[in-house]
């Protein structure tokens, strides 16, 4: 908590500065680039997620913020102050490790009190009060005397959260915080983490490769692939307005039709000229992808059944998959490519597998992507 990065004389800049500012940050191990040219701001008190497939550099990026890895390029600023060269124990942030990293030789209370004891920032009596409060925050009242070995996975994680938050860091980084929990506990903890974050008013940065988790918890999400950040946006914006084909594919499911742009139409080989959303601002002749979400696709028996202005493509219904809350229809288009449509609830289409159908959608609900 004694953070040289937030000395009082820096206050004027620090107050308005983002919690984290990365400028052209890169990290190369040997000659494998793990993170490349990342520039982004993490705002104060926001719940920020870094989302991407395995090996894309999420952990490495986070470890550069904590100081466990030194960037080979660019600068990391914390609260408006350059943190390059500041060791981890002098940064005003804490990390929640994926394995929780609880100290096995200390009991729950001692684990939680660890930071306050090490930093000697408060008198003894206050420490025990702070421990009680921290345990209450994660709903583990009365667990102080337990040994770590006696706790379940979910309880261990709560202890780790209490330990990380007791010193009120201005930033908490969580590396796949829910990775080790089962599905049900996960969903519970997602809401819980969000609630704790609101209560303590600390900036949370989580790393995950679970998109649902990121969408549920985050104020903003950074999508990473191959060491680069592709898009930083709110969950809705990421879902509704993905910036690249990768993002559209990684978040939720998308159908892609690839072709060449000409006016308000997209020329797709052997499928014809399809209407695209207006005002896309891309030049004629550009090679682009048209992304269509399955839930925006409706199936009809006849082309004429589709409302005016909708794009319609013929295909064959291959499979109907019941997902519980939705039904998914897998088709094959006339060029042999796969196409997916989805409707809420159980199947009420009356369509049979193997039947010829038309897939239709409103061009305004589709999206053009030039990369």
């Amino acid at each position, binding site marked *: 908590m004694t953070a040289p990065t937030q000395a009082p004389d820096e206050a004027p800049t620090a107050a308005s500065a983002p919690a984290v500012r990365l400028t052209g940050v890169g990290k190369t191990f040997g000659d494998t680039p793990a993170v490349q040219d990342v520039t982004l701001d993490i705002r104060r008190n926001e719940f920020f997620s870094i989302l991407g497939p395995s090996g894309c550099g999420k952990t490495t990026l986070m470890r550069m913020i904590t100081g466990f890895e030194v960037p080979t390029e660019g600068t990391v600023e914390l609260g408006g102050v350059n943190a390059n060269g500041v060791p981890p*124990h002098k940064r005003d942030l*804490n990390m929640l490790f994926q*394995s929780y*990293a609880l*100290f096995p030789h200390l009991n729950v209370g001692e684990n939680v009190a660890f930071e306050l004891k*090490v930093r000697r920032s408060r008198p003894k009596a206050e420490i025990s009060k702070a421990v009680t409060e921290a345990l209450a925050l994660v709903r583990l009242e009365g667990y102080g005397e337990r*040994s770590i070995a006696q706790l379940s996975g979910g309880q261990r994680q709560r202890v780790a959260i209490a330990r990380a938050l007791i010193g009120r860091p201005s930033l908490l980084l969580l590396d796949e915080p829910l990775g080790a929990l089962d599905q049900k506990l996960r969903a519970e903890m997602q809401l819980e983490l969000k609630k704790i974050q609101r209560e303590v008013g600390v900036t949370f940065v989580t790393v995950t490769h679970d998109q649902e988790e990121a969408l549920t918890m985050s104020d903003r999400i950074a999508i990473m692939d191959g060491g680069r950040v592709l898009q930083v946006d709110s969950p809705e914006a990421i879902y509704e307005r993905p910036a690249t084909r990768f993002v559209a594919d990684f978040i939720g499911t998308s159908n892609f039709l690839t072709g060449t742009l000409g006016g308000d139409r997209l020329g797709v080989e052997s499928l014809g000229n399809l209407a695209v959303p207006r005002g896309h601002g891309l030049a004629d002749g550009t090679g682009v992808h048209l992304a269509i979400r399955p839930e925006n696709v409706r199936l009809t028996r006849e082309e004429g059944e589709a409302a005016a202005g909708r794009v319609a493509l013929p295909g064959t219904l291959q499979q109907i998959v019941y997902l519980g809350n939705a039904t998914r229809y897998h088709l094959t288009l006339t060029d042999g490519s796969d196409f997916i449509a989805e409707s809420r609830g159980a199947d009420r289409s009356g369509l049979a597998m193997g039947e010829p159908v038309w897939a239709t959608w409103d061009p305004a609900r589709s999206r053009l992507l030039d990369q």
Partner: protein
Amino acid sequence: MTTALLAPAGLTVVGLVLVPLLLVVRNSFASADSYGGIQGGFTLANYQDLLDPIYLKVFGYSLGMAGLNTMVCLVLGYVVSYYLASRPPQRQMLLLLLIILPFWTDFLVRTFAWINLLSPGGPVNSLTDAIGFTDGPSQWIPSQGASFIGLVYAFLPTAIFPIYASLRGVDNSLGEAARDLGCGWWRVHSRVLLPIARPGMLAAALLTFIPTLGVFVIPVLLGGGRDQLVGNLIVTLYTEFRNQPMGAAASVVLLLLMVASMAVFGLAARRLRRKTA
């Protein structure tokens, strides 16, 4: 039924351990004949003779040497174990093998190797000459220092194994978590890693301290036999002085010292367990 099954083991223990032990205890109270043999009778004279300052010094010196050796082995053992445990897994196996390797060579041979290494003009001497630490052949053998090097050399692997065992399962992220929570490198060790290694350190201390008391080859070969450990004293009393009852008395005292130190270590272990449980 179980008694019948246990009989062979019981007989072995009684025959090979208990009987010789009782004989030694019995002999320590016997008086010697003029050739140093056992004459029988009951006397405390042997123990009284051991109170002579010359012998007391040997006991004191042994305890000191054993303590110092234990301390040095614990420190080096911890450093080596920490290094080992933080290597990638395959590297750990290789390094461990290098530590075990010398065990497959006879101990006497290895001690003689040290005589060569430390001899005037030998490899160590050439090295210290090269870095300007010494100038020309130096007489390091026999000496107390050489004897101590021999002791550390002999017991270091024994100290490394239990410490390494207690550190190797430890998640790398524990050290990082400690740093994250405000520990510089010293406190990462003093507050987290050392406490975790403590059971291993205790075992290492036990395995170093007690056997050091009974060592007799190293002080003779590397120390020139001047500064003796209890082990040397016993050998000397039995062979050179031909005073078997007194040798037996010295053995009994050594045994009592070992039992006492085991009790101390045992108590420490019990306290440690109670604290972590």
